[in-house]
């Protein structure tokens, strides 16, 4: 058990407070485990230290610190010890989602989608040049909405630059620079296990992206990060506490960026980008948006309106979670990322600008 503890905690904790507490939780989680699983995991971890995913292969689109080293190790030697290496019947995609082998059509569509991660050098250079030009890393930098930027966002952001570009476009860099309290301090303040919200969060952690290897198990790489972010948000916004949709957004962000960046994007989303009271206890903002969407459909999409009426379907049954998760659980991961650029960088940009003017 000690061995397992040291192996797991050395990787999935990046120096934030509450470490002992966290280790206690991990050992508790491990105690419930099938011993065979655990032995597999330990064996996996012993084999190699830092394995890098093959370009375009499983886990290749993940932010490097999220790559599940134990599974990488197993993938690296499938023939180990004569019983199939303990590999499951499914494979993993670029983001670590399980893909069942029998899903024929899914595979072929995946091949098409995989192009999204083959980066064009020219494209990347263009963005790198641009990011220097407008000084992305400068927290004070004002978001200049130029035609050039608009076109570049529409053409897509190179996958590897998404974290930086999103951080800048949505205003998270600015928020981090202008906030007095640091993420580290917020994490420390919110690490109380006893809170009702902490218990709710704990219950949900492995039910947010159960089909992703980074979030499927209490010891998965993403789980402690997600726990810290959700607790931090609940602490920072006591009126909101923990609302289930936010977990899905945070987990999706964590797949491609580091914890602190994901946290600041979440703050910007909740505070600045979304209308007020979207996640508050009454969820009044979400409910209002359902009504607005319904009336827009009646006006502009008569075909859909007719079908909804003919089958007596209440639209919010279908659309409520689109709004709650900002599409994170609706469309394919790869599309979400592009949608993310648009949502974070463009559609909300003008609103944010507008609000900025009001404040000044």
């Amino acid at each position, binding site marked *: 058990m000690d061995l397992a503890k040291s192996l797991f905690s050395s990787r999935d904790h990046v120096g934030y407070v509450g470490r002992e507490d966290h280790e206690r939780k991990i050992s508790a989680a491990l105690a419930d485990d099938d011993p065979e699983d655990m032995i597999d995991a330990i064996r996996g971890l012993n084999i190699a230290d830092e394995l890098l995913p093959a370009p375009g292969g499983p886990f290749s689109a993940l932010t490097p610190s999220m790559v599940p080293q134990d599974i990488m190790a197993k993938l690296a030697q499938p023939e180990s010890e004569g019983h199939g290496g303990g590999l499951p019947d499914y494979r993993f995609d670029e983001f670590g989602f399980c893909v069942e082998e029998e899903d024929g059509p899914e595979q072929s569509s995946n091949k098409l989608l995989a192009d999204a991660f083959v980066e064009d050098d020219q494209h990347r250079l263009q963005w790198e040049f641009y990011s220097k030009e407008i000084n992305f890393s400068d927290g004070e930098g004002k978001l200049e909405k130029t035609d050039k930027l608009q076109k570049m966002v529409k053409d897509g952001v190179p996958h590897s630059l998404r974290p930086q570009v999103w951080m800048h476009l949505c205003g998270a860099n600015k928020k981090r620079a202008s906030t007095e309290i640091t993420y580290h301090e917020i994490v420390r303040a919110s690490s109380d296990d006893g809170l009702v919200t902490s218990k709710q969060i704990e219950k949900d952690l492995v039910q947010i992206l159960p089909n992703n290897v980074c979030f499927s198990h209490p010891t998965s790489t993403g789980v402690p990060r997600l726990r810290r972010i959700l607790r931090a948000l609940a602490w920072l916004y006591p009126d909101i506490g923990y609302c289930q949709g936010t977990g899905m957004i945070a987990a999706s962000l964590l797949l491609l960026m580091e914890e602190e960046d994901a946290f600041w994007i979440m703050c910007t989303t909740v505070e600045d980008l979304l209308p007020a009271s979207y996640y508050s206890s009454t969820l009044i903002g979400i409910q209002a948006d359902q009504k607005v969407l319904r009336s827009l459909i009646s006006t502009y999409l008569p075909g859909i309106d007719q079908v909804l009426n003919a089958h007596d379907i209440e639209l919010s*049954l279908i659309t409520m979670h689109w709004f709650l998760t900002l599409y994170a659980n609706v469309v394919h991961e790869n599309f979400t990322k592009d949608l993310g650029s648009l949502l974070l960088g463009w559609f909300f940009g003008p609103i944010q600008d507008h609000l900025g003017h009001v404040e000044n």
Partner: protein
Amino acid sequence: MAKTYDYLFKLLLIGDSGVGKTSILFRFSEDAFNISFISTIGIDFKIRTIDLDGKKVKLQIWDTAGQERFRTITTAYYRGSMGIMLVYDVTNEKSFENIKNWIRNIEENASADVEKMILGNKCDLEAKRQVSKERGEQLAVEYQIKFIETSAKDSLNVESAFYTLARDIKAKMEKKQEASNPAGARSGAHQIRANEQQRKPTSWLSRCSLL
């Protein structure tokens, strides 16, 4: 638009978070079970058409989130539902005690004649059981609601639970139609009078009479 069904029934699944509402629905609609489900966010629904005494009955089943936060949203759906499944987990005492609260919730928000049924789920987990079958039955007698223990995992009684609820709705509806339309009149106005408690009576009753 040609209809492929004779009746459309809207059902609602409610109960504490983690009792297995989504699993029950997944078992009924896909005949499958998955140990790790994504928490239901807000509300979701599935559709299955069943054959009931020679009639095609389309079931539109609404699955609600257990999280307290979504209570205001989910109660908005009570009014439009014709049948409600109250689900508890036989390995979780608290979820059983809360059934009373859920019933109160129904009384406050649903139409008075909504059909109800109590399901004690996870009955395959005999070793972890905290609520005996007798206590479930007793509660059901107390409220005069039908009761059955289910296991979404082992596919036990899920099918029959939905069929029972659907059959009860159908019987009640046909009885009501007979009472309000002895001459088989097709006018929607008569039905509205007979069902004032239903907020949108024309939406489903008129459809039924057209068939």
